[in-house]
């Protein structure tokens, strides 16, 4: 109400307008669940400082609308259910967004920079005669944004002087908003009449039990070096041990090793996981654009000159056909994997597990002693809160299954490990 009365005079005074900011986030979903990038977009919308509304449009919205209404920071959920929204066609959704904007006069309209958002948002901007801003990675102020250009090689800070700011949000640049704790009001919208310019026929989605690529904490990606689609199984096996998603370079996709929707890069998906393992990927500019914001990057490549080593934190110059199975095996021995993890001593490592260990001794494997040195190196950080880390000489005499006296749990477990 207040906005409707006050909008005109206030528009001239930027500082006052700021207090009356209102943002419309267009929710992406599949009529069943909300797509995770919407949560990142809501965080970006909250950063603008005003009220955040969410538009849920689809053929079946009840479940998703409920889900969105519980997201922290959402004040209002607008629901538009109609058969015309089958396939979430931009031609049908655009009039709805425009109508909704006319009704509520938003200062900002945004969606995640996914295939859905990239398809829809510029059309909405075109209809409202506004210059949209794509794939923002930072919000400096309600009218100043940062985005990347030239495959992520240039950061551009730009100011948008439009009355309505319309933009897409890079999901990996904003945290996901908490999916609970909110209590937004729900409001039904009357959908405008169907446009009928286009029709959704069907889809073929890649089915996978692994985490979704753009939101996975760990991503294992393969390139041309994998040589065939069958060899990608090596990466799937490794990914399973790490609960990782599998990605690919354009070369691997073009060669038909994996489907297109796994492509990471400037024109594929942008990922920023905690750990990105690039296997047999040279590291072309276009690929780096999609992954160089990952927290830790590991490169496994037999070419020591490969550009991927320039962005990687850890580089292993090795034949992937040996290194990847070795890595999988090491991680597979459950306790070995746990031992390497920081909190292993307290949580996941039971002695019985350790007794059951057998070291893989296939050709090309590192020696157990090497591994033990490696593990010893991690001990100080593992034993936080417990006894101080043992050194190798003090425990080397310990035998498997012997009395526990004189040893801390850490020492004991470590001694078992040494015996194997």
């Amino acid at each position, binding site marked *: 109400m207040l906005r409707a009365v006050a909008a005109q005079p206030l528009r001239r005074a930027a500082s006052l307008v700021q207090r009356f900011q209102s943002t419309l986030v267009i929710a992406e979903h599949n009529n069943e669940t909300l797509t995770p990038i919407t949560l990142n977009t809501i965080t970006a919308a909250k950063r603008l400082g005003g009220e955040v509304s969410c538009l849920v449009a689809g053929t079946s919205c009840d479940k998703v609308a409920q889900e969105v209404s519980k997201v922290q920071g959402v004040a209002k959920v607008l629901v538009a259910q109609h058969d015309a929204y089958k396939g979430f*066609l*931009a*031609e049908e959704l655009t009039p709805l967004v425009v109508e909704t904007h006319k009704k509520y006069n938003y200062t900002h309209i945004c969606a995640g920079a996914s*295939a*859905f958002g*990239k*398809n829809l948002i*510029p*059309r909405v901007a*075109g*209809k409202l*005669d*506004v*210059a*949209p801003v794509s794939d923002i990675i930072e919000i400096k102020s309600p009218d*100043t944004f940062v985005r*990347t*250009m*030239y*495959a*992520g*090689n*240039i*950061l*551009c*800070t*730009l*100011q948008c002087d439009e009355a309505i700011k319309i933009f897409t949000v890079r999901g990996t640049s904003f945290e996901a908003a908490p999916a609970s704790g909110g209590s937004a009001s729900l409001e039904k919208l009357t959908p405008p009449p169907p446009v009928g*310019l*286009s*029709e959704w026929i*069907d*889809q073929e989605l*890649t089915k996978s039990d692994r985490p979704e690529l753009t939101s996975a904490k760990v991503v294992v990606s393969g390139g041309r070096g994998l040589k065939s689609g069958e060899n990608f199984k090596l990466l799937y096996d490794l990914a399973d041990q*790490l609960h990782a998603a599998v990605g690919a370079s354009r070369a691997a*996709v*073009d060669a038909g090793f994996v489907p*297109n*929707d796994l492509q990471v890069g400037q024109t594929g998906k942008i990922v920023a996981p905690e*750990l990105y393992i690039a296997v047999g990927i040279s590291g072309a500019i*276009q690929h780096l654009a999609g992954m*160089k914001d990952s*927290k*830790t990057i*590991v490169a496994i490549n037999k070419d020591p000159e490969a550009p991927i080593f320039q962005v990687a934190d*850890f*580089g*292993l*110059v090795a034949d992937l056909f040996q290194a990847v199975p070795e*890595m999988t095996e*090491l*991680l597979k021995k459950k306790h070995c994997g746990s031992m*390497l*993890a*920081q909190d292993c001593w307290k949580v996941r490592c039971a002695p019985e597990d350790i007794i059951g260990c057998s070291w893989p001794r296939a050709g090309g494997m*590192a020696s157990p002693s090497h591994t033990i040195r*490696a*593990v010893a190196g*991690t001990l100080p*950080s593992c034993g936080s809160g417990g006894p101080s880390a043992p050194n190798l000489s003090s425990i080397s005499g310990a035998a498997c299954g012997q009395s526990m006296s004189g040893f801390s749990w850490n020492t004991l477990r470590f001694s078992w490990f040494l015996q194997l």
Partner: protein
Amino acid sequence: MAPLKVLVGVKRVIDFAVKVRVAPGGHVVQEQGVKHSLNPFCEIALEEAVRMRERGEAAEVIAATVGSRQSQDALRTALALGADRAVLVELPGAGPEQGAGPGAGPGQGAGPPLVAAALAKLVEREKPQLVLLGKQAIDDDCNQTGQILAAILDWSQGTFLSRLELDPGSSSVRIQREVDGGLEQLRLQLPTVLTADLRLNQPRYATLPNIMKAKKKPLEVQPLEQLLGGPVPPPRLRVLRLEEPPVRQGAQRVESVPALLERLAALGRI
């Protein structure tokens, strides 16, 4: 169905293999003496149009660009790759090395809304049934022009196209799009705006005879004001600063897989 008239929008951009640098002043990128070429996605869009003509589905393929005089290079390439004629919509006041930039600042080219507005005027004049564009330019990475153009024209849109089939006897096309989870199929009413993804086709190389022939093909130059029928609107996004992102430290070499796992464990990554 009679063969279609197809308009293909192309853009001259800094070559995909060039490492781009910010020019002193921090408002534009260094373009002087840098290799430029046709935006890869535009090549794919053009290739699709040329194949349509070769199959008898398209009657004429017009390549158009909005940019500086320099963008004639891109149009000559398009002609050598099989376009029948070309239109350069010339940006006013664009310097010798400008017009292909990110489109959001002084002297940096038109930007998607203005390019879409110019293309819409061209569509009005040429009356194509199909407009093919690339899904994004590799310089500004906007991924907007096709969608804005479809909005202005009130046409259907098919973005991230990986397959195109004309429905014989009807006034629609059947397309396959690349979406996040896989692929989807749509039917779009003609006229329509389509934007090409990488997987649509494998563009051909221009042969020397075709490059020679392209020099004789018609290339019209039209000032942007003339096409718009009024003054060119100022850019609506202002570039405050361009900068290069922080450089990552190079890799620490690890000697073996266990050593690698150790380092990752120490960081808490596994």
